[in-house]
């Protein structure tokens, strides 16, 4: 009895109430070294791979809101996206918004951290964070920004550009589209200034100086700022580090990690993958398989074009046209391409064409490497067509339609889409955001 009592008395101090931290560490005291910083950077990359972001959703957003593909509702997924019928509480709009800003938060921890170690290495790590911060804001902007709604443009509402982790202002207001563009350019420039080409990781699973330039060219193309796009794309093209995958290797390149055309891809492997919640299962899985290509999509390819072959697109057992070739592995472990050389080449062609140069050679270098007929001119329409063929199912088509100020042709096989400028060219700002942040303004056409 006395033993019980004294044991008890002893354990009743404040100390006896300290919980054990077995699998976590405190933020305040745990980021001290270059190694810690690298760990946070990996956390940032890991967040990019989530289903709500590059693991699946943002790629599907680009194609299911276009004339490439639609959601057949097989598992009830992406129906509101595909039919552009979102509301302010839409799970997709909420999930991706949240995920993008989590990536930004991780990037900001890296950028703001003061750690000990080799300065060049630390700068290379921080440079990657700057680049990803720009990419994430760009992704938020193209989904939620008002640049293509009503009159839109650079003065329209963009998204908040967040540059601090747990900073002073926890209720940021929306920057304008133009402000976001300028801040992204600043971040890309900072990334290049901090990073060293000699430290570029050869696996292509990390941001390199080439990836920074490639992504920068993508952003400028989106805004039609062709001079800047030209500079960025030229840096990649002239680096001679990458080549267009020839037609014979094209199909295999999709199941090859770090292929010759890859500039930046997200690491996925057999122990770390999204399984049924990834891209393969939504494009053709027997459980989900919601994203189906329009029958007419098969008709855009020349005879012999490898991209229109049955290895890339084919009809499944139920007679539905499917993306077969991209993200092909039944084991769900393909790396996810974020930027590849062919896109940069097409960016370069478009930039050249729009800055008084001639992009035809570059345009045709893609087409001919797919066994397609070469184009006679590098007209904007031809560049757009080639982008559609080359980048199908990779999340580009909606943005290409939007930046070309085109209407959305279809919502599903039975419905025409909205005209350019319609409210649903932007996702709604999620209600969880407008409710928590009184500085946040909802997008046109949606309610709070």
């Amino acid at each position, binding site marked *: 009895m006395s033993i019980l009592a004294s044991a008890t008395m002893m354990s009743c101090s*404040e100390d006896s109430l300290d919980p054990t931290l077995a699998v976590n560490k405190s933020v305040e005291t745990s980021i001290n070294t270059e190694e810690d910083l690298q760990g*946070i950077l990996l956390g940032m990359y890991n967040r990019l791979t989530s289903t709500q972001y590059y693991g699946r959703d943002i790629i599907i957003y680009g194609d299911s809101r276009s004339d490439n593909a639609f959601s057949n509702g097989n598992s*009830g997924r992406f129906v509101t996206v595909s039919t552009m019928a979102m509301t302010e509480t839409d799970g997709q709009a909420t999930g991706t918004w949240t995920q993008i*800003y989590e990536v930004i938060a991780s990037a900001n921890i890296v950028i703001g951290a003061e750690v000990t170690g080799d300065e060049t290495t630390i700068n290379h790590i921080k440079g990657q964070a700057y680049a990803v911060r720009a990419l994430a804001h760009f992704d938020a902007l193209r989904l939620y920004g008002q640049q293509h709604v009503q009159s839109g443009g650079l003065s329209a509402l963009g998204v908040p550009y967040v540059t601090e982790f747990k900073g002073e202002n926890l209720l940021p207001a929306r920057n304008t589209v133009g402000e976001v563009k300028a801040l992204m350019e600043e971040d890309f420039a900072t990334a290049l200034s901090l990073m060293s080409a000699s430290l570029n990781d050869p696996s292509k699973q990390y941001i390199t100086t080439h990836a920074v330039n490639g992504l920068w060219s993508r952003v400028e193309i989106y805004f039609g700022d062709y001079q800047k796009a030209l500079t960025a794309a030229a840096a990649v093209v002239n680096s001679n580090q990458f080549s267009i995958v020839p037609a014979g290797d094209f199909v295999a390149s999709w199941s090859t990690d770090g292929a010759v055309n890859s500039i930046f891809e997200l690491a996925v492997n057999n*122990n770390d993958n999204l399984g049924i919640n990834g891209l393969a299962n939504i494009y053709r899985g027997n459980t989900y398989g919601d994203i189906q290509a329009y029958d007419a999509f098969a008709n855009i390819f020349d005879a012999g074009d490898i991209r229109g072959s049955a290895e890339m697109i084919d009809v499944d057992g139920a007679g539905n046209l499917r993306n077969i070739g991209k993200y092909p592995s039944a084991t769900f472990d393909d790396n996810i391409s974020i930027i590849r050389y062919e896109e940069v080449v097409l960016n370069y062609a478009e930039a050249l064409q729009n800055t008084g140069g001639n992009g035809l050679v570059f345009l045709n270098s893609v087409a001919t490497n797919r066994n397609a007929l070469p184009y006679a001119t590098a007209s904007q329409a031809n560049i757009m067509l080639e982008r559609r063929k080359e980048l199908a199912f990779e999340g580009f088509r909606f943005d290409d339609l939007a930046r070309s100020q085109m209407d959305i042709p279809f919502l599903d096989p039975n419905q025409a889409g909205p005209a350019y400028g319609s409210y649903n060219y932007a996702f709604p700002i999620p209600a969880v955001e407008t409710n928590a942040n009184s500085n946040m303004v909802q997008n046109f056409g949606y309610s709070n």
Partner: protein
Amino acid sequence: MKSKLTWILTSFMVLCVSFSFAQGKTISGNVTDQEGLPLPGVSVVVVGTTSGTQTDFDGNYTIDANAGQVLRFSYIGQKTAERTVGSTNVINLQMEEDAQALEEVIVLGYSTRGKNEITGSTVQLKSSEINDVPLVTVDQALQGKVAGLTIASSSGTPGSTQDIRIRGVGSISASNDPLFVIDGVPVISGNFSGSTAFSSLSALSAINNQDVESITVLKDASATSAYGARGSNGVVVITTKKGKQGKTSFNYTSSYGVQDFAVDQPTPLTAAQREQLYYDALYNTFGDGGNNFTRAEAPAEAPTRGGWGAYAAWIDAGRPEGNWGEEVKRKNPTIVNHNISASGGDEKGSFYASLGYSKTEALVVGSDFERINGVFNFTRNLSDKLKFDTNMNVSNTRQNAFLEQSAFFANPFLSRYFMPPTEQPYNEDGSLNTNLNTSLFNTLYLAENDIAENDLTRAIINSSLEYEIIDRLKFKTRFSIDYNLSAYRRYENRVHGGGLADGGTAESSINRNFNWVTQNSLNYTFSVGQHNFDLTALQEYQKNKTNYLYGAGENFPVDGLTYLDNTSANFAVSSNFTDWANASYLGLLNYNFAGKYIFDATYRNEGSSRFAPGLRFGDFWSVGAAWNVSQEDFMSSVDFVSQLRLRGSYGVSGNSGIDINAYQALLGFSADYDNQGAIFPTGFGNSLLTWEKNANYDVGVDFGFFDDVVSGSVAYFNKRTYDLLQNVPLSRTTGFSEVATNIGEIVNKGVEVDATFNIIRSNDLNWSISGNYATLDNEVTKLALDANGEEITITTGTRRIEVGQPINAWYMRGWAGVDPANGDPLWYVNGTDGATTNDYNAAEVAYQGENATPQYSAGFGTHFDFKGFSFDADFYTAGGHKVYEDWSRYTKSNGTFSTRVFNGTSELLNSWTTPGQITDYPALRANAGDGNRAAFTSSRFLYEGDYVRLRNLSLGYSLPSSATKALGMDAINFSVRGTNLLTWVKDDRLKYDPEVRADGFTRLTTPPVKSFVFGVNLKF
């Protein structure tokens, strides 16, 4: 002072008297109970002396006394009797049961009090109200019995956790579940299922109803503040059966029953109906009023449109009906219970031992629940001053769970409502069909070939030593161990279902939860004249630690192997450790003057590891007072009042029911990228995080008239929860969704009434009616403000928390019906009335009235007995709340979900087809966009929740004692009991069971069941 002197004088005199009359004679005798059975342990004292003894095992006693002295016989539960010693040396006595005394001891957890000594609101259920309830978890016995307590099962799957709410919902982010106390010690009461996607398994399912002596529900501050930081949601105190002194008696009970859905549930469309509706949809969408094709031509048009494949195959097969709704239901699921217990004791101690077995099949194929448990409760007087008791309960519960907590393809209830009826469960040869024209799985196949098993072994050992230091000053030390070993095993076959893509999957987890509590207390009772004091000081420390180990693998080489050993790819393992602790100091004072005026006070200082250093300890207290008016002299002439007391209490209790480590800003290390460990922030952190508090006042009156022919109580309570532990939403741009803070305030108030009317009371015939009724008014009175001073509401797609509204008030677009001209769905532009629109986004979101918490709830019943027959009926009702039909977006879609991709429910047969038609179901559409939108969240699927349910109907018969004696038995009982036999629902659109979880959403889980159970009870 005067009375104290009297006491000393008396004692002195007694001494003198004892000396004077030391020479006497020896009296002996036998004491029996009202049934004539010997009663051991009866205290026999010579009044006015220190001389006394107890009856032995056979009820016999001997004592020395003188003629003219008085012997007093007393025993718990029996009326105290006195006999004057006369000329005879033998005094035999048959004692009379004191029914009132039995009921009047209220178990409060740390203490027990006479009913008249209590100042707060408590309700105690007797064993007879608990033991025979044919439901698996013991807390299910509470429904309808306690005013102000609402309970809803998380699922009708046996063993599932219950949502219990006492006096409403006071917390936004912290737990709203009450604290459970078993035999004086706080215990774990949560979910021990290995996966939250599967059926839940309540820790309380480890307790057998048959072993429970009483359950007390503590509602107000004077009762709950003793539990300090964890008392604010109310406390449920469970007391297990203890041995009774006397010859060892055995009790065997056995029951057998069958079950069905308590209400019919929605009816899925048949394939033939669905086909015709699809033609309607095609015609409505593409027929262009008959310009393109007529309704009659729609069947010919259909094959030219996309998505016809499954219909074509079905038509080719001869239009067979796949009746999934019936197929996934188990045919006549049974309930089986066996329990045997033994109880006995002598003057030195007593014991209660029991062994129980229970098996309940779920209403869905492949799921069941089985429990075996043993109890050994033992008390022993080690010496005159030292008492030892121990309570042991060890059980193993095994539940075959299934994926029921959401719309999983493997959920049989998903099959019931979603599976296209054009798909067949069986092949023509009778084997299960795994070649379906849909992404949904054949859940019948999965029920036979997959495994999801929760296996919980729970051991509670609770021991105490009590030492009487001096007269009436007792020291008690208690140590309790509660160990929950929960094993979970999952296997998905490689032929069909979720395991197909991976060649079969397996996972296993072990959750070891070890909880220990130590209490040391001093209790002193004394009286100064008519001033009676009862003081307790108690110190308690509780520690809980959880070790978790998980493994998973994929790809089995052959069928028939189901363990991880045989997997060959994608291995995953994880393990982690968490702990929490509470340390408390408690003081209890109970005072009464002559039993008329009661005052009590409670103070508890408690620290919890869940909060920031420096803010861990909180102070909780209460004061209460009661006036037993009926005991006043001036009431003695008021004959019709048998009982009248006024009571009131006020106090502060707390709530610490939040996730561990919420106060810390932490980094997580559980992610990886490129095969390297990755680090990410896991919580915003709040270094100021501390208790949620709850100020609660309660006033009431207890009454009994005409010798308690009519009795009952009325109480009013007001419970203000403040410094809410609230996860305040953050702008997602911070990288976080929310931060735990102490801000906000919610008030719950209401009136609780209970009453009993004993219409007939006699030896052979009794008839009574009783009931309880409670109202609840809930309002959010304060919330967090953002940096701009604007209130941060918490809004989801269906609900909002905002000042001035009830918590989680329904908040969505207002449904305005169907446009008779064209069949379009309409919503109110302003959200509630007036102008309408067919554009969902043009309609505003607005409050649609009420929340999910019933504003009134009541239980009422009647008891009738005549000779050996008894009859009971108990009703339960709740209402004034609203229920949202979840998943209606699919099952009531007027687009492709219901007629082409999945299935719909039979209400869709009322869909609009003709201009001018008045209906609430819009025109069906064959495209995804417009069609599915009509079933987007709106008040269209928000129903009034009021219902009345015949909770219990039972008929019992006890053989007369002449017959049982002849059979060598003490008692034989038969009973037939029906549970949830009838249900009335106010809103006829609500086809799901109206008893939904506390959040107010219908679910695709097993609905509540109705059952018929036959039971027999033998005592010998």
